[in-house]
């Protein structure tokens, strides 16, 4: 019967039926997240240029800071990949170390983002300033909130890894949070190009 085929080969997280269903469910959830962010991107595109009396984005966006944020997040995606690689090799220590590196990079990203938001607010561009800035803060803020959520979630899983070691369940959880983390990276690439790069030149 195919319904309960638990195998003993392949990656740990895929061995149980439950693990496979969880991972598929999470992929579908990511599909829904794509729609969610698409809607926010579309909203941003519609409201682009509607800055009212607030400063224009080209006056505020600064390349160096955005580049640092981008490198932090992209690197964290890479280290997250290394963490999963260690998990596949069965190395709990490697997994934990690289996961912590990943989260540290994520925290660095968040720190810069908060600094950026505060800086803009001082320059007169905050959520209520204009339609454009509302769209900007909600789009980037939703992404930032997702990063924060990802970090908190991963911390919980780190604790569980400490308690239980590598099991089909914990490795599934690590794998799923890894998917989430890469997804946030993909969203950031779109934010980097369609918000910051375009915002700087238009």
């Amino acid at each position, binding site marked *: *019967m*195919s*319904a*309960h085929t638990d195998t003993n080969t392949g990656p740990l997280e895929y061995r149980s*039926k439950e693990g*496979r*269903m*969880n991972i*598929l*469910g999470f992929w*579908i*959830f990511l*599909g*829904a*997240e794509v*729609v*969610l962010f698409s*809607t*926010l991107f579309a*909203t941003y595109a*519609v*409201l682009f240029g*509607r*800055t*009212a009396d607030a400063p224009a984005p080209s006056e505020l966006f600064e390349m160096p800071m955005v580049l640092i944020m981008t490198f932090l997040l992209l690197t964290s995606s890479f280290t997250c990949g290394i963490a999963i690689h260690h998990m596949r090799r069965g190395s709990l220590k490697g997994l934990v170390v690289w996961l912590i590196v990943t989260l540290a990079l994520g925290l660095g990203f968040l720190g810069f983002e908060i600094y950026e938001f505060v800086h803009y607010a001082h320059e007169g561009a905050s*959520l*209520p*300033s*204009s*339609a*454009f800035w*509302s*769209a900007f*803060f*909600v789009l980037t803020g939703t992404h930032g909130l997702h990063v924060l959520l990802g970090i908190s*979630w991963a911390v*919980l*899983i780190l604790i*569980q890894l400490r308690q*239980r070691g590598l099991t089909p*369940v914990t490795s599934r959880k690590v794998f799923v949070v890894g998917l989430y983390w890469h997804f946030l990276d993909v969203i950031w690439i779109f934010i980097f190009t369609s918000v910051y790069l375009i915002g700087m030149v238009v």
Partner: protein
Amino acid sequence: MDLLNFLLEDFFVTGQPLIYGAMVSIVLVSFAIVFVLTYFKKWGWLWREWLTTVDHKKIGIMYIIAALAMLFRGGVDALMMRVQLTLPGMEFLDSQHYNEIFTTHGTIMIIFMAMPFLIGLMNYIVPLQIGARDVAFPFLNALSFWSFAFGALLFNISFVIGGSPDAGWTSYTPMAGANLNPGPAQNYYLMGLQVSGIGTLATGINFIVTILKMRAPGMHMMRMPIFTWSTLITSIIIVFAFPILTVALALMTIDRIFGSHFFTLTGEGMPMMWANLFWLWGHPEVYIVILPAFGIFSEIISTFARKQLFGYKAMVYSMVVIAALSFVVWVHHFFTMGAGGAVNSFFSITTMLIAVPTGVKIFNWLGTMYKGRIRFDTPMLWSLAFIPCFVIGGVTGVMLAMAAADYQYHNTYFLVAHFHYVLIAGTVFGCFAGLTYWYPKMFGHKLNEKIGKISFWFFVIGFNICFFPMYFLGLAGMPRRTYTIEPEWMPLNVTASIGAVLMAIGFVIFVYNIYYSFRYSKRETTGDAWDGRALEWATTTPVPFYNFATLPHIDGSEAFWRLKERGGSTYETDKLKPIHMPSDSGVPFIMMALMFVASFALVWEWITLAIVGLIGVIVCMVIRSFDYDDGFYVSVDEIKRTEEKAREGEQ
């Protein structure tokens, strides 16, 4: 003193005799429920058997009960509107109260009646149809239900606490914005839909994985029962449509509470963007509530025509096409907003295209009945009434789809008649048909046929008397959402109100039938009440909590029909193995109760309390994350005992 003032002036809705009456009855009913539960010592039972359950069958039943309650609430709203519109110059409702009532009527019927009713049927039936022991994520399923229940509760208390939203179920901005619509009323709409929307999205994901991964061995996709197919396609629409609603609601909430400018007239916001976002979700939503109904009708027509469903593959593909088209027609809801000829033409054509796959389905139903030996039981009567009524709704829909002509029909009773013809004849008939059809599976006895037929005739005749005149009222210029009528519209409005009363009588008889049948109906001894064709009828009645003791190998479509032909069973003692089942959990209920607190606080813009509630929700998530309960196994002995007992009457 300040507190008292606040309570009397803002918190509670005061000054309306109708609402005072409602308050008194809410208090009395609540006391009665508490009293009955305490007197009969049923609190523990309620908690163990229902509030903490993760069983898809019980969750399905809870959905259906809640949906019937919401149908009652929405129906009372409808009757009040009909009273007000019967004669010119009626003063039963003032304009403000009328606005509130058409808003809650629409919102409740779509979000808190139609969807939960269908999701309830899906919950009960789909795992049985595919031979699964539960859905893929039973815990998440409970979470979905409680998010719907608390979302509905939040929306429904608005009329006694704080005031009902009054900007229509579409809540167009800027009218629904903070400037023109201050106070908690509109926030109830936003938070109520947001909370229940989370659950709907989770349901969508849950059913996709369930259907893709948990089918019985041998049941290929093209061997699945058609209702399961409709559920799968509906779930896919949910996953791609609901995040749009989530964002739209969130943006309006942020506009109203935190002062952003998405849909405002100031700060260069764009009020018209709301209409786009709303209908980008709203149109697929229409198909979310119609496709499962199509699935139900297909099952019933095939069973009662005693024939295999005609054009099974065409049925599947037409649903796929409808699902795809549902995402590219949204502008037809606001042709008159003036998007220009090219845009309107595009959406005109895509809208008319939907008639093609829908027409295919109509002919397939007719083809299924052709040369069938039709039995006219109540579920079949609902399905037969559906076809002509729905065609009337569909054809007038094509009329509305022509952008140029729509300038004439737009926002008139012609539109009101159209969407009631598709939603009532499609979704409501479908819900009644499905509930009557699967009732013996759920409760172990049929609904009484005679009373069921009386209820059917009252409802269907009443429906046509109520809504058919509205087409002509619309052509005569009666605008939608008007709270008072002109004298020349009176005769048709009186007719419509008579129809509404007949429908109400039909509904009351339907509910009475539930009571009557519970007392007097013959109990089912086999699991196969209607000589069914799909796998849900292969289980015993009542269905054991693990559904199937053993699963037959599926070697074609109409799994149970084939099983009956070759004399197979879902209880083969030599194949018995312990069955793994999930544990019950109180976390979904508590988590969503806290979510209710948080969103109630947000409705009133009490930010601190909202944060406290949200922290509670997060704590629940953390508890869940550390919960490694792996469920339990049902022993072979217990399965044997359960099955022998359930199968006593059969031999």
